[in-house]
């Protein structure tokens, strides 16, 4: 029996629900506003007694393609981030290479640069290269938030990785890459999934890169598509809120699936 299971599960579930409900009240309010009669998001009542779905019909009609674009870009950026960051994090944490302190430093500094500076610089490079309005271009750009983050996070987790396992394998003649692929990765699933989740979230909620590197005519992530309802002088709030609700759904489902992989004690039995 593990010490983590609890004696009064139902009570804990109830408390858990209450805690999450408090945290998510603004999300509830957003759903409430999306159902308020058009233009009256401001005077929404506590409970949507007279729901108006016109915002949703507008959102569904306009944003379908945008949602798919957002998903493709976010998943692509997430995969790219993990693929590039995982080996790097492992090398920084476990393989001894001289001068990598500089790399860590550089990665840290890169996290401090305002997004608009990066976006502007990328625009000047993407433009002549014809990468404007391209999905691969957006994936590369959106990974710029995920890669440094993933490197730092996974490096932190991998620092406490029991290197004795790898050493044992190396003594048996296993190469670095084999050791990484067959031993380190499976055991550090937690950190991989966590890094992947955040890389996905960074790319999913990105607005600046999408705004700068697309012209809105061919591809439009949903963060940009939202602005169809935000004019300079008036805003269709129920459509905005409806779009936000709809666009959260696929992402929430992905999050729920991903979180199942953050299992307990992943490193537990490995040493044995």
């Amino acid at each position, binding site marked *: 029996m593990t010490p983590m299971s609890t004696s009064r599960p139902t009570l804990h579930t109830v408390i858990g629900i209450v805690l999450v409900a408090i945290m998510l009240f603004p999300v509830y309010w957003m759903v409430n506003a999306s159902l308020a009669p058009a233009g009256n998001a401001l005077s929404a009542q506590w409970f949507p007694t007279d729901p108006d779905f016109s915002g949703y019909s507008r959102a569904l009609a306009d944003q379908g393609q945008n949602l798919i674009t957002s998903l493709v870009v976010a998943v692509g950026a997430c995969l790219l981030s993990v693929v590039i960051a995982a*080996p790097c994090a492992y090398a920084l944490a476990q393989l001894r290479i001289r001068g990598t302190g500089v790399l860590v430093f550089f990665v840290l500094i890169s996290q401090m640069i305002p997004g608009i500076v990066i976006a502007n610089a990328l625009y000047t490079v993407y433009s002549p290269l014809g990468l404007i309005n391209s999905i691969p271009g957006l994936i590369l750009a959106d990974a710029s938030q995920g890669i440094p983050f993933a490197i730092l996070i996974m490096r932190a987790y991998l620092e406490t990785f029991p290197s004795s396992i790898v050493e044992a394998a190396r003594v048996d003649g296993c190469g*670095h890459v084999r050791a990484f692929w067959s031993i380190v990765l499976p055991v550090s699933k937690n950190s991989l999934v966590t890094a992947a989740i955040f890389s996905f979230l960074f790319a999913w909620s990105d607005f600046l890169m999408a705004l700068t590197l697309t012209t809105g005519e061919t591809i439009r992530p949903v963060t940009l598509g939202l602005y169809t309802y935000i004019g300079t002088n008036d805003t269709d709030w129920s459509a905005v*809120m409806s779009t936000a609700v709809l666009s959260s759904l696929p992402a929430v489902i992905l999050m729920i699936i991903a979180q199942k992989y953050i299992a307990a*004690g992943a490193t537990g039995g490995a040493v044995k």
Partner: protein
Amino acid sequence: MTTTTIDPAPRRSRDSARRRDLLVRVGFILPAVLYMLAFFGFPIVKNIVMSFQAYDFATFFNGSAPFIGLENYAATVTDPIFLRALRNTGLFTVGSIIGQFVLGMGLALYFRKRFPLSGFLRSLLLLPWLLPMIVSAAVWRWILEQDNGVLNRFLEGIGLIAEPIPWLVSSDTALIAVIGVNIWLGIPFNVVLLYSGLQSIPEELYEAGALDGATGWKAFRHITLPLLRPVVSVVLLLGVIYTLKVLDLIIGLTGGGPANATQTLATRSYEMSFVEFDFGQGAALSNILIVIALAFAIVYLRANARAATKG
């Protein structure tokens, strides 16, 4: 039958084996290094160069940006709002980090217990991160509205306050309100990372500790915290860096107002560039911000190195 004779050949093959090994190890970091250089090298350099130039609106069209040395930095530091922005940045960062971390750690520890729906509820906690910032800011502005906002109606309803609190429109409460919203936004980040870190601690350690009589708070202090240290320090460090950079949230909630009550160095830098069109000064201020964040980074790296040699 194998022969083991010592002659020059093995040394050469030892050297080439070592070189090959080094190449393989470098191969692990090479894609990342190239990506970082390509995507961050130029912007970092450009930002530094721009901070020494007189870069204004017209520069974007005619390219003329005369070198003016440290004038931008001097102007930035002597700007009347600078000290206020600096103080606000400090308060904002400290308040946000303490709130996010404590609440995040609390929630992460709570969700370690196994009960029905715990995984599902944990995933829902990520919802604040899935909302576009413009939506979150708009919703919070409605909630915090002085006259009709839900928060004031609730507080008045339960008798906690007599007068509505001017959350976002008074210089006394605006910064507190903004810190509160930022804590809300930062909790999911902390919860997920800390939970993941907690899950990586082998349960056998707790079992063994329980046998020695270390449970509850003692277990937390002697088992959890030490093993969680690398994750905690990276979460705190990244938390500080991201909080220093927070821009969209403040602009969305108050625009830096009212009357500069919520101006931080990040919002000031943005304002100098895109409202006052003095990009040189904006770059200078963002570089100052980077240096401040660097100070934290250096502390982290030193503490990390010391702990690594100890462990």
